[in-house]
């Protein structure tokens, strides 16, 4: 089935939601995911560095931005992790952050892997017609 890739993505990000918000346009989905990946690659590295430096302000700000971007890319679990980190940083309780950050990184790797697979038959099927 040509929809299998989307099914595989389902527990990483909500493809249906994203597609709906991209007005049913797969090119648009691709563009958003690319933007998202560029931004998150940078932000995630910066976030890890900010943790190393114990820069609470910066952690909160980066996590906030990641949270917003994830929500927009329908990457709901990424969003949850980012929100938890932001919340901890705002409360100046960085203790639990490293573990969360690890989970965030893992989730991110799953996400990028899923998106890479998503070079999708579904898209070719649509754009080739």
């Amino acid at each position: 089935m040509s929809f299998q890739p989307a099914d595989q993505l389902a527990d990483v990000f909500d493809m249906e939601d994203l597609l709906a918000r991209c007005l049913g346009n797969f090119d648009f989905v691709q563009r958003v995911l690319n933007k998202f990946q560029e931004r998150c690659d940078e932000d995630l590295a910066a976030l890890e560095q900010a943790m190393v430096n114990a820069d609470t302000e910066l952690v909160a700000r980066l996590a906030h931005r990641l949270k917003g971007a994830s929500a927009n890319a329908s990457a709901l679990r990424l969003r949850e992790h980012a929100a938890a980190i932001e919340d901890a940083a705002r409360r100046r309780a960085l203790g639990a952050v490293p573990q969360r950050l690890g989970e965030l990184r893992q989730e991110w790797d799953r996400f990028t892997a899923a998106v890479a697979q998503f070079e999708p038959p579904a898209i070719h099927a649509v754009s080739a017609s």
Partner: protein
Amino acid sequence: MHVLVVEDDCVSAEILGSWLRHFGYEVTTADNGRDAFELVRTGRFRLVVSDWEMPGMSGVEICRQIRGRSWGSYIYVILVTSFEGVDNVVEGLNAGADDFLTKPLQPEELRMRLRAGERILSLESRDIIIFALAKLAESRDPQTGAHLERIREYCRALAEELSHWDKFRDVIDGEYVQLLYLTSPLHDIGKVGIPDRVLLKPGRFTPEEFEVMKRHTIIGGETLNAATQAHQGAEFLRMAYDIAMTHHERFDGSGYPRGLRGEEIPLCGRILALADVYDALTTERVYKPRFEHELARRLILEGRGQHFDPDIVEAFLRRESDFITISQRFDVALPAIEPANSLAPATPANLPGG
């Protein structure tokens, strides 16, 4: 229309921008408040969609800055927040935001909010242009002072009163009152087509001159009718047409231009007839001095059922105090007028507009 999107998150900016282009807007994006404000200062944007939380200048701060100075036209600001809560809405409202959206954004919702914004912006332009048009027409006949400002207030008072009556409840709603307020200043717009020698004549009209003067109803009506036909969505001019065409008709059929009688005369025309005469009576004109309210009231009562619809006269009596207040509020001193060569006895018969 050109929308300014202010969003520090490039994913959101990408999505927002694509939606807006898809909806047919032109889009410019800024990723921080300072750049955004510089863009606003170019005057190219009347719709701004801004993220609330941004490093540097926040969305609320942008809003404050925009409201802090005056612009060529109103700028409609929608703030996008990632948190819900009354406190934030109150802070946003205080800063002058017009509307709010909560993340994650949904395209249909955004589209609806922008439409609402556009509607408000276009109504603002429309109302200003209509009044300016009416003022322009009136400027050839400067003796009437704040005539248009008073007329629309009188009309509103009458319509509001009638809207509470069972008889008119189904005809006059809030929108009717608004439309009447908006379009009543256009009643004499046809006077632009009347030559100066007639329009500005200080004394009594000859029968020929009166015929010329009467034409202002038809000239105005035809102009507005042409505009209504040429522009769908200009239905509000339908009422303006009725007003221009029928504000000199009389309840007993002795008016002009068509001699309509009773309910053949659109309600708005009947309302305007009384408002127009009351204003002519209570202000100084080249052909008459200013009458006190009591005298004006008596003359209007005498015209009940002949010149005026008895229902409108009744509404006038119930809103008498409003009329007095309105006539005083706009009672600006007029420039001294050279005494007219002859003052005809002023009765509703030669009031107003000849």
